[in-house]
C-alpha cells in the first residue's frame, strides 16, 4: 500500500471509526450518569408527578453537572492541543501561560485575605477574582509579547508568573485561618458541580467561536508543523501564534474561574488522541480533542461522584490518576524512539 490516496483514505476511515466509538461511549456515560447520580434517583421516578424534589435534583444538579463535565473536558483538551502545536511540545498544557495560577491567586485573595465582604455572594466573588486576575496576566503577557524573541520566552514568562503567584499564595496560607484555608484548597481540587446554566452557556459560546476560528486555519496549522511558515511567512506565523495563545488563554481563564484548576485533561487528551489514532493532521485532531476530551472528563466525573456512595471525590484527584499514566507512557514511548 504505497498509493497516497489509499493511505489518506484509510487515515480518514480510522478517524471516523474511533470517533464513532468514542461518541457511543459518551452517550452511554451520559445515560449512566443521568440514572445514577449521588442521590440514587432513577429516571423512571422523574416522570411520576409526585416527585417534585427529584425533578429539582435532576434539572438543577445532575444535568448541569453532566453538561459542565462535557464542555470543560472539550475546552481544556482543545486548548491543550493548540498549546502543544504552538510550542511543538507534547508535554505543555493550557496552564503553561501561568493563567490558572493567576486565577488561583485571585481566589486566594478572596478566600484568605478577606476580600469576600466586598461581594454579596461568595462563589461570585471567587469567579470575579479569578477572571480579573487571569485577564490581567493575559493582557500583561500580550502587551509585552512583541518583545519576545521566540515562543520559549513566553513559556519562561508563564512559568515565572506561576511561581510568583504561588509565592504570594504561600504567604496568604501562612497567615490565614483554618476555615478559609480549607475553602481555598477545596477550590484548588476542582469541581464540575459549580456551574449554572448561564455559565455553561457562556462556556459553550467561547468554545464554539474559538473552535470555528481555529478549525478554519487547520491547513495553516499543518504547515506550522512542517516548519513551512517559519521562513516564508514570518508575519503570518506570528499572527497565528498570537491568535492561538489568546484563545487558549481565554479558555483557561474561564475554565479555571468556573471549575478551579482542572489537572491533566489538557495535557493528556491530545496525547492520547495522537497515540490512538496515529494521526497529526489538525483537521482530525481538533475535532477529536473535543470529542475525546468531553468523554474522558465525563468518565472522570462519574468516577469522582462514586455512585455507590453519598460523598464525592475531588475531580482533580481522578483526572490526575487518569492523566499521569498517559504522560508516563508518552515519556517511555518517545524514549524508545531514540530521542
Amino acid at each position, binding site marked *: 500500500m*504505497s*498509493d497516497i490516496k489509499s493511505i489518506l*483514505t484509510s487515515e480518514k476511515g480510522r478517524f471516523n471509526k474511533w470517533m464513532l466509538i468514542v461518541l457511543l461511549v459518551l452517550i452511554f456515560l451520559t445515560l449512566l450518569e443521568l440514572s445514577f447520580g449521588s442521590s440514587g434517583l432513577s429516571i423512571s421516578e422523574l416522570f411520576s408527578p409526585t416527585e417534585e424534589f427529584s425533578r429539582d435534583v435532576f434539572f438543577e444538579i445532575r444535568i448541569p453537572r453532566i453538561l459542565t463535565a462535557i464542555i470543560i473536558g472539550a475546552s481544556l483538551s482543545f486548548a491543550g492541543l493548540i498549546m502543544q502545536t504552538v510550542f511543538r511540545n507534547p508535554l505543555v498544557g493550557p496552564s503553561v501561560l501561568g493563567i490558572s495560577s493567576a486565577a488561583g491567586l485571585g481566589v486566594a485573595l478572596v478566600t484568605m485575605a478577606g476580600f469576600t465582604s466586598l461581594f454579596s455572594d461568595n462563589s461570585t466573588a471567587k469567579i470575579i477574582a479569578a477572571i480579573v486576575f487571569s485577564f490581567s496576566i493575559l493582557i500583561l503577557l500580550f502587551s509585552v509579547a512583541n518583545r519576545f524573541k521566540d515562543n520559549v520566552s513566553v513559556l519562561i514568562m508563564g512559568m515565572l508568573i506561576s511561581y510568583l503567584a504561588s509565592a504570594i499564595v504561600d504567604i496568604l496560607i501562612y497567615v490565614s485561618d483554618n476555615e478559609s484555608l480549607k475553602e481555598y484548597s477545596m477550590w484548588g481540587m476542582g469541581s464540575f458541580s459549580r456551574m449554572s446554566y448561564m455559565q455553561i452557556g457562556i462556556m459553550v459560546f467561547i468554545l464554539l467561536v474559538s473552535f470555528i476560528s481555529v478549525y478554519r486555519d487547520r491547513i495553516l496549522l499543518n504547515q506550522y508543523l*512542517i516548519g513551512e511558515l517559519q521562513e*516564508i*511567512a514570518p508575519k503570518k506565523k506570528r499572527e497565528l501564534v498570537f491568535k492561538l495563545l489568546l484563545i487558549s488563554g481565554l479558555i483557561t481563564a474561564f475554565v479555571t474561574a468556573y471549575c478551579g484548576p482542572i489537572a491533566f485533561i489538557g495535557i493528556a487528551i491530545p496525547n492520547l488522541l495522537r497515540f490512538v489514532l496515529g494521526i*497529526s493532521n489538525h483537521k482530525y485532531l481538533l475535532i477529536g480533542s473535543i470529542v475525546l476530551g468531553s468523554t474522558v472528563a465525563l468518565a472522570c466525573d462519574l468516577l469522582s461522584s462514586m455512585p455507590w456512595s453519598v460523598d464525592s471525590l475531588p475531580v482533580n484527584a481522578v483526572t490526575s490518576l487518569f492523566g499521569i499514566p498517559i504522560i508516563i507512557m508518552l515519556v517511555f514511548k518517545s524514549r524508545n524512539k531514540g530521542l
Partner: protein
Amino acid sequence: MNHLKGVDVEIGYDEVSLIKNFSFEFRSGQVIAILGLNGSGKTTFFKSLMGSVDLLAGNIFWNSVNMKDFSFSSRQKIFSWLPARKVIEEQLKVYELLSYSAEAVNNEEVLKSSKTMDLMNHVIALMKLEKFLEKPYLSLSEGEKKKVEIAAMFMKNAPVCLLDEPSIFLDISNQKEISGILKHFAKVENKVILFSSHDLTLVESTAEECWVVSDQKVEVFTNVQEGIHSYTNKEFVIS
C-alpha cells in the same frame, strides 16, 4: 514560459546592505547555482525574492509585473523554498509531511483534489519514496530526510524553486540522485531551479549558469567552470 527579472536590486537588512546594484534575469528550464561565502547574502537573496525580507532598492518583475504589488498568497504560488535546516515536527510520518506541503498550494485538503493527488503520486514515483511514506520522519537517515524535504518542496508545484544547500549531509550517490532530480524538474517540468551550495561537485554537475557573490557584487557566469574557477581563486579578506 515564465520569466523573472530584477533591476538594480539592493538586498540586506535595515542598515546592512549585502548585495548592491544587482540586475538579473532567468526563465523556466534554467538551473542556476549561487556561490558565495557564509553570510555573503545568498539566503537573504532568496528571502528577498519571496518577499519575507523587503528589498532595500530596485524592483523585481514576474512576467513583467512588478512584484511589489503581489500579496503573500500569490508569492507563495510562485516560489517554493527549501531552507538548509528545516524545523519539522519529528513525529510526523513522511506522507503527512508531503501532504501538508501539497495542501499549502490551494489551501485545499488533498483528498478533495484529484489534481493534487496526481501531482503527489507523480513526485513520489519520480523520487522513489513509496517505501518511506508510512515511516516517521524521525526514523529516516539524513540523506533520506533531505530527499523527503526536496520532494515536499516540489509538492507545491511552484514555477520557481529556491534551494538553500540541497546537498548538505548527502553522500556521493545521493548527491548524484539529487542532481538528476533537479535537472529533471528544470528540463522536463519546466521549472526554474535556483540553488546555493558550497558543494562544487554538485554545482558542476547540475548548474548551467553560476552566480558568484562577493564584496556586495554578483558576477554572472554562463560557463560554470569559469565561475567555479573565479570563485575558488578569489582572495577572500578575512575580517
